[in-house]
Structures are given as C-alpha cells and as structure tokens.
C-alpha cells in the first residue's frame, strides 16, 4: 500500500495522540472507557478517531460526534471531554 494511493489518510486513532494526553491525565487515556453521548457506543479512548486542526479533535468511531477536544499550548494543555468516561486507575 502506498500513501499516494487514492484513499488519502486524514485521521489517526486515539492511540496516535496518546502521548500528549498521558501528560494531562498521568494515566493511559487509550484504555479509558467511554460511552458516546450521541449514539451510545461504548469503546476505548484508543479506538476514537483523531483529527488535527487548530487543536486535536477526537471523534466517536461509530457516529463521528466529538468525544474530546485538546488544545496543546506552550505552557498548558486545555481539554474538553464529552460523553461518559470511566477511568480505572489501579493502585499497585
């Protein structure tokens, strides 16, 4: 498969932007569970689709609605989350 083939790729997976989000949560956001506010789909952060615009937009892979918006700046990172997220932090 060649990147110049027809199907031009426009998004990555949630996994592909996990580095920056790990700085925010100090935990691995790709394994957070999320229930979509629009379609009810339950999936993991790593399964979201990520788009890079002025900031990063993560969208539900099932319905395309916005799951998270991230704005990485020089001295801070602004994050907005939508839907129901459950975060399991194991203390070991």
């Amino acid at each position, binding site marked *: *498969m*060649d990147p110049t083939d027809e*199907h031009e790729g426009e*998004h*990555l997976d949630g996994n*592909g932007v996990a*580095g920056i989000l790990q700085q925010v949560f100090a935990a691995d956001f*790709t394994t957070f569970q999320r229930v979509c506010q629009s379609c009810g789909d339950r999936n*993991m952060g790593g*399964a979201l689709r990520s788009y890079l615009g002025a900031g990063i937009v993560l969208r539900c892979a099932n319905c395309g609605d916005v799951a998270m918006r991230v704005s990485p700046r020089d001295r801070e990172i602004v994050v907005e989350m939508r839907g129901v997220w459950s975060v399991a932090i194991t203390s070991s």
Partner: protein
Amino acid sequence: MERLAPRKTPLVWRVATVRDVRTESATARTIVFDVPDWPGHLPGQHVDIRLTAEDGYEAQRSYSIASPPADHALELTVELIDTGEVSPYLVEELQRGDQIELRGPIGGYFTWQPADGGPLVLLAGGSGLVPLMAMLRHRDASGATVPVSLLVSARALPALLYRDELSCRARDGVEVSYTLTREAPSGWTGWNRRVDAEMLRAVGADPQRRPLVYVCGPTGFVEHVAELLVGLGHDPHAIKTERFGPSGG
C-alpha cells in the same frame, strides 16, 4: 498467566543514545537505543520522538517499538519518506553515539500479550509491521503457543521488512503470508495485489474463529482493511487498529 502491566511512571522526555543501526530493507532501518531507566513496555506500544534544531525549532513524531519487552535495548524501525521531515533524519543522518529525546511507552490500547489469548490475526501495511513484529517476538520469547497468522502487505520485495527473521519465525503455529501491491519478481509465490476479502479469509480472518485482529499501517491501508473485515462480519469492536497517518510508508 502472568500479565505485564505498564508501571505508573510519569511520561517524561528521556535522552536516548544510539547504540547501533541496522539496515532493514531498501528504505528502512532499525535503530537500537540505550534508554536509561526505561520503565518497560508492552508489545504494540510506541514512543514519541522529539528533534530540536540549533535555533530551537522542534519536530515530534511517533514510532512503534519493534523490540519485545524482554530486550535490554529499545529498537525502532523507521521507513524513509523522501519528502518527510523526520524520517530522512532518522534513516540517513542519525549515527551510533548520537543522542535524541524520546518519551514512552505510550498507548496500552493497541497491545497484545499472551494472557490476552488468540488466535491472533495480524495485518500489516508497510511499516505497520513494526508493532505487530513486537507482538510476534514477544509471543516467541515468552514461549506462548497462541496461533498467529500474519499478512504483510508491501509495495515491492525490496521494501519488505524483517524478511529473514520472519521466515525463521514462520513455524510452530505461526503462518506468514505476503502480498506485493506493485511489481513482484518472477517466481514470486505470494499474492500480487491489494489486500481483499479472499486474502483475509485465506489468512484466517474469519469471524467464526473469533480471532483477535490487529491492523496497522498507513491510514488508507487501515481504512481499507477495516472495511473489508466489517464486510466479512467482524464486530468493529473486536478489531484493533493503529493508523500511522498518510505518510506512514
């Protein structure tokens, strides 16, 4: 079965030193790094790399970890994108003894370990083979017997990664198949076309077998293969994907 869990260590930039470089194909090379205090990783995870020019300009990219957790050094395999900014530096410029910044491991979602079970179906486009190779290496290193079927799609023979190693690993429950999407040499016994449903069935990506399916490669490849898998009746939630972007090689 014992389960590896990534330790909770803050994600910090670490200075990695190039211990060795290895030619992996006509357009790719493997870079072996020494990373002090590396916290360990799971097969499938990646690192972020940060390059800084003298005037402070920075470029950052992600690269999958090719080496299995048990290895002492951290290996990345990078495919050259001629017009790229970072891959030409990593493939052509970086030398033994050089230092760069990296952080990781990142992304517990796209990982596999023996406790997750199988059978495993691994579908790789171009450099998308890298994280799947870490899974295969870990399976062998840990003595797991989970059946694995790996399909590797590449443009042409000289672009195939890890060829010798894969032919050694293709035994004891591991099957490796190839397809070349451009020209194939005479006498080529693999496929010579874009991945299609028939190919996926032939490598065991049949929903009845309930395989764990991992797809990795350029975004176009992953989109195409994921659509085919859903067409074969797979639950989209049972397919794990990792898109490398338009330039993932």
